[in-house]
C-alpha cells in the first residue's frame, strides 16, 4: 500500500528532488522490511559473537514470499520513477503483487508485463484454449516436482544430513548426493515455473519466462540467462547496472559482478553457505567474462558453439554448477566441505554383489583399494546411478516445456537468443488424441505421487 501511495505522490515534475526522495524512501522501506524479517537473526548471531556484546533476538518468523514481492515492489517504484508506468490503479496494483500463481516463488514480474493483461476485456474468463494449454503445462510441472524432484531428493538428504553430523561420505555417496540435489533443485524449480505459467495461463495471464533448460548452458554466462531468468533480470537492471555495469572498464565490471552475485546469494537465504554460493558464481562469471575477453583479443573462434566442444563446455559448466550447489544445500560450511572432500578424495566403496558381477574387473578393483560393503544401501546406489544417468540425458537432450508448447507461446517473454538451450526440437504439443493420453498419464502419475507435503525449495526464499 505504501509503495502504491508513494507512486501516486510522484505526480510532480520528472527528476525533481521530491520524486528522488520518495523513490529512495520507498526502496529503503521495502528493503528494511526484508532485512528485518529475513536477516535480523543472521546479523544478530554474528554480532553476538563479538567480544563484549551480549544479546539475544527472539526468533523472527519469515513472511512467506517476502523476497519475491519485495523485489516486485521495488521494480514498480523504479519503473514508476522512470515514467515507464502510465496508469496507477490500486486494485490492479494489489493483483500485481499478490497474483497467486507467481506470488510465492516467482517469476518476479514487472508491472507493465501483467497489468495490461489484467486490464484486457478477456481477463477473468475461462477459455477452453487457455485451460487446455494451462492444464497441460501445469501437469508437466507437477510431474517434475512430485515424481522427479521429490523422488531424487531422497537420495541427497541422508548424505547431506550425515555430513552435517560430521560423518565422512565415501566417493560415490558424495557424488550421488551432490548430483541428486543438483537434479532435485532443477526439477523442483522447473516444475514450479511450469506450474506458475500453467496456472496463470488458465486465467488468461501469460507470465514471463523464468526457467529454460539451464543445464544445457555451455558457459556460466549462459547458465544465468537460463536459470531464474527474472531474478537475473532484476539483479542486472536494479543492482548491476546502477553499480556501473560494464561501462567503467573491466576491473570495475568484475567487481560489480562479484557484488551483484554476492547479494544474489544472500537474497536466497541468511547464511554464509548462500553467500559462498553467490560468491562462487560471481567468480565463475568473472572467469567466464575474462576468458571471453582474452579469446576475443586473440581472435579465437567461439568454440563453445560447435561440435564436441559444445559437450565439453556443457560438462564443465554443469560441474561448476554442481560444486556450487553443494554449498547451497549444505547446512554449514563444514558440511559442504565434508561433501566436497568426499567427492575428491573419499574412499571408493562398492557393494560386494556388484564387485562379484564384475568378475576379474571386480578383483582388480579390490586390489586397487576399492572397499567392499554389504550394506543394503549399496543396492540403492545402482538404482540411484541409473536414475541420475537418465535425468542427465533428460536435462541435456530433451526439449523443455516451452519448446514443446512454442506454437501457443505459453510465456510472455521469448527465450534468450543465441544459447545452446534454444536449439530446435521436432516435438511439439498440439491438442490431439495422443497428447490427451500423454497429458492424462503425466497428470495422473503426478497426482498419485503426492503422498507427503514436500514444499518447493524456492518457497523458503
Amino acid at each position: 500500500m505504501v509503495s502504491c501511495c508513494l507512486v501516486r505522490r510522484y505526480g510532480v515534475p520528472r527528476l525533481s528532488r521530491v520524486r528522488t526522495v520518495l523513490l529512495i524512501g520507498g526502496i529503503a522501506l521495502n528493503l528494511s522490511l526484508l532485512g528485518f524479517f529475513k536477516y535480523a537473526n543472521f546479523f544478530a548471531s554474528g554480532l553476538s559473537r563479538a567480544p563484549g556484546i551480549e544479546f539475544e533476538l527472539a526468533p523472527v518468523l519469515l513472511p512467506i514470499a517476502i523476497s519475491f514481492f519485495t523485489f516486485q515492489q521495488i521494480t514498480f517504484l523504479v519503473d514508476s520513477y522512470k515514467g515507464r508506468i502510465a496508469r496507477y490503479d490500486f486494485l490492479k496494483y494489489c493483483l500485481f503483487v499478490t497474483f497467486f500463481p507467481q506470488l510465492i516463488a516467482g517469476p518476479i514480474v514487472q508491472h507493465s508485463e501483467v497489468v495490461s493483461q489484467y486490464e484486457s476485456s478477456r481477463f477473468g474468463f475461462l477459455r477452453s484454449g487457455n485451460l487446455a494449454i494451462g492444464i497441460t503445462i501445469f501437469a508437466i510441472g507437477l510431474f517434475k516436482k512430485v515424481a522427479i524432484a521429490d523422488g531424487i531428493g531422497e537420495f541427497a538428504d541422508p548424505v547431506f544430513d550425515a555430513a552435517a553430523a560430521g560423518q565422512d561420505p565415501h566417493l560415490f555417496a558424495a557424488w550421488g548426493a551432490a548430483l541428486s540435489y543438483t537434479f532435485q533443485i532443477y526439477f523442483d524449480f522447473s516444475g514450479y515455473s511450469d506450474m506458475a505459467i500453467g496456472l496463470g495461463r488458465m486465467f488468461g495471464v501469460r507470465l514471463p519466462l523464468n526457467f529454460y533448460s539451464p543445464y544445457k548452458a555451455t558457459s556460466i554466462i549462459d547458465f544465468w540467462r537460463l536459470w531464474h531468468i527474472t531474478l537475473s533480470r532484476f539483479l542486472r537492471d536494479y543492482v548491476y547496472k546502477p553499480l556501473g555495469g560494464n561501462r567503467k572498464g573491466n576491473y570495475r565490471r568484475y567487481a560489480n559482478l562479484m557484488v551483484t552475485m554476492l547479494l544474489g546469494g544472500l537474497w536466497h537465504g541468511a547464511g554464509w553457505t548462500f553467500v559462498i554460493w553467490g560468491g562462487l558464481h560471481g567468480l565463475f562469471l568473472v572467469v567466464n567474462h575474462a576468458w571471453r575477453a582474452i579469446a576475443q583479443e586473440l581472435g579465437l573462434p567461439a568454440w563453445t558453439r560447435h561440435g564436441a566442444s559444445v559437450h565439453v563446455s556443457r560438462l564443465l559448466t554443469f560441474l561448476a554448477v554442481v560444486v556450487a550447489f553443494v554449498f547451497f544445500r549444505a547446512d554449514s560450511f563444514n558440511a559442504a566441505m565434508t561433501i566436497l572432500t568426499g567427492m575428491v578424495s573419499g574412499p571408493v566403496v562398492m557393494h560386494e554383489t556388484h564387485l562379484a558381477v564384475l568378475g576379474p574387473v571386480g578383483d582388480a578393483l579390490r586390489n586397487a583399494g576399492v572397499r567392499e560393503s554389504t550394506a543394503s544401501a549399496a543396492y540403492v546406489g545402482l538404482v540411484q546411478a541409473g536414475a541420475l544417468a537418465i535425468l542427465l540425458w533428460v536435462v541435456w537432450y530433451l526439449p523443455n516445456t516451452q519448446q514443446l508448447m512454442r506454437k501457443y507461446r505459453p510465456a510472455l517473454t521469448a527465450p534468450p537468443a543465441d544459447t545452446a538451450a534454444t536449439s530446435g526440437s521436432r516435438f511439439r504439443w498440439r491438442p490431439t488424441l495422443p497428447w490427451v493420453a500423454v497429458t492424462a498419464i503425466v497428470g495422473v502419475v503426478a497426482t498419485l505421487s503426492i503422498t507427503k507435503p514436500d514444499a518447493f525449495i524456492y518457497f523458503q526464499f
Partner: protein
Amino acid sequence: MWRSILKHVRQPGNGLGFRRTGFRTYLLGLVLVALPLAYVFTAIPETSFVGLPVDEADYLVKLRNSGPNGCTTLFARRPEVMFIGDSHSYAGWDFRLAQEKLDKKVGGCLVGGMYIESVPLVLSKLGPDSWLPFKSGYVPDVIVLGVSPRMFWEADTKQQQVENTAEELDGLSSNSLIRLFDAAAGVALAENEDKTAAKEDLATAWHRPRIMGLNLADIESRLDNSRGTVDPLVYWTGRLANVEYSSQIEATINQICNRSSSLGVDLYVVHIPESPYLEAGYDSKDWDSYMSAVKALERCAVNTVINTSAEYGLDNRHFVNRYLTDQDYSAWSREDGMIEAAHFDPDHMNPFGAELFTAKSLRLLFVTVPSGVTNNP
C-alpha cells in the same frame, strides 16, 4: 465403426498422423482418460508392485531377514496383518506359515536393532486415505508387535539405532515414482531371480534331521564351555550383566496405545522367546521389569502373550545354525569339537524354531478373536 473412428482421428499427411482436435474435445478427452487411468494406477500396486510380478513365497521368506524391503513395500503390498519388531521378530516368524494359518495377507516392517521408541514412528507412518485425490493411505486390520527385552533397554548406540530405523522408515509412506520403482526393482530382482523360497525349502530338508538330531546335553555342555570365547555368547554375557531399562517406556507405550487406537487397528503383543541358554542368564529383577513393561501394553492390546521358550517347546536346537549354512554338526558331540559364532545364535530362532513358534503363538494370540483372523493351526 472402428474404421470411422480411425478415419476421424487420423489425418493423412500430418506429422504424427493425428488430427488436431478442438480445445474443448481435448479437455473432455483429458477427463475421460484420466479418471479410469487413475483407477487402474491405484489398483496396480495392490497386485504387483507397479507391474513387476513378485513371487509371494519368495517375498515372505525374504522378510525373515533385516532390510528395508518389508517397510518400503508395505504401502504397495498392503498386508491385512502387519508384523512389527526387531531381529528377534524377523527371525522368529515363519511368514509363509503365518499367511497360511491366518488366511490373510501378511507383511511387516521389521528392522534389526529396533527399539520400542521406534514403534510409534512406524505407526505414525500409517494412516487412512488422504483428502488428496487418489492418494492412498494404508492401515492394516491387525498389528502384531513382537517384543524382546533388549527393545526396552538403554544402550550407548541407542540414539544412533533409533535414527537409523527412522531413516529406513523414511520411504515407508512415500509412494514417489522413484521410490516405488526402487522398491519394486529391489523385490523383483532380489527374489524372483534368487528363488529364495525354493532354496530355503531345499536347505530345510537337508538340515532338519541334522539339527533336530543333535543331543541337547551336548549342546548345553558345549555352550557352557564356550561362554567366554564365542562372540555372540560373550556379547550377551556382557549385556545381561549391565541391564538398564529405558526411562521412556511409559511415555512410549502411551504413544503406541494412542496411535493404534486412533488408527482403529487391533494390536496384538507377543514376546519373542530367546534360547533357553540366554533365558537362563537373566537376573530375576531384570526379567520382572521386562514383564511389567510388556504388561503395560495390555491396556491397549487385544491380546498379549508372554511365554518362555520352554512353554512353546523350543530348546537350544532351535537356535542352532540360523542361516542353515554348511557346518560340521559332529563338532557339537566331539570332546575336542569347537563351535563358532555362526553355530549358535542365542536370540534368533532358526527356521525350525520359527516354524514351531509361529504355529503355537498364533494359536495363542488369536484364540480369543471370534472374527477377522481365523484360528486353524
